């Protein structure tokens, strides 16, 4: 087998590993680091490191890609982006949306579910007070719309139900979209 090809493969494998390790770095730093490493290896080759073993030694002296990337990460603050909604936030929103529909099944289940949902909503740090109020009032507001349609327009019950659902779903979607993870202070 051709020696040059073999050492090329070693270098490529090394640079591939480095690129993978460096994926988390900002693009500018990553590209610069990879360029520096490529140049270093090219310089070592120009200086006479050509055989497999010599190339292997050059790479070994450079160090493990993970170590090099760790050095490039020094001083960078790793910011963990918290999710906007955690699973229990979804549960809260889900309970608020679904609880009214459980009325026909059991009033107690519906009420308990809704109260739990409201409690979870208010204990979550994902919403401002305004949005917590909107979340809390989703059921009453939807009901009010249905009632108004019924009283003032004598709308058929189906129309009122659909309007109620649309209001509830619309407000719930808005609630989900306006969830914000708190800014991290540390």
């Amino acid at each position, binding site marked *: 087998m051709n020696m040059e090809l073999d050492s090329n493969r070693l270098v490529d494998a090394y640079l591939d590993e480095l690129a993978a390790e460096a994926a988390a770095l900002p693009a500018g730093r990553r590209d610069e680091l990879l360029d520096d*490493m490529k140049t270093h290896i090219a310089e070592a080759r120009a200086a006479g490191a050509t055989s497999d073993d010599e190339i292997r030694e050059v790479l070994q002296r450079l160090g493990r890609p993970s170590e090099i990337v760790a050095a490039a990460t020094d001083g960078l603050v790793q910011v963990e982006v918290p999710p906007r909604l955690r699973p229990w936030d979804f549960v809260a929103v889900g309970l608020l949306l679904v609880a009214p529909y459980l009325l026909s099944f059991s009033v107690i289940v519906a009420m308990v579910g809704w109260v739990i949902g409201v409690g979870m909503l208010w204990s979550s740090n994902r919403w401002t007070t305004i949005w917590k109020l909107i979340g809390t009032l989703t059921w009453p507001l939807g009901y009010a719309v249905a009632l108004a349609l019924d009283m003032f327009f004598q709308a058929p019950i189906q129309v009122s139900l659909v309007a109620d659902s649309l209001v509830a779903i619309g407000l719930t979607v808005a609630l989900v979209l306006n969830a914000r993870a708190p800014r991290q202070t540390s």
Partner: protein
Amino acid sequence: MVAEKVFTQLRRGTLEFCVLALLQGEPRYGFELVKALSDVDGMVTTEGTIYPLLARLRREGLVETSWQESGSGPPRRYYTSTPEGSQALAAFTADWQRFCTSVDKILQSGRRG
């Protein structure tokens, strides 16, 4: 070796000033600088980590870089110390000498006692 961890930390902390010291006066390119550091026993264990260090020194304005063509290989990025770099090095050198003197004194008194 018990002291290995200590020397890893010491090396990490002092390496940037060794780099600055080598860049006083004459510009050097990366590969040349790495070789100069590696030639000194115990200073560099992973040569590759010097490049991120150089990049950081440049971001901090302690070194500046310029590109030059080379006859034998790829274009070379030359590094040289800025006045701020020389100033940082001078300050470190004074502190380092005081530090070494203190440690030596205590080690020796420990040995005598």
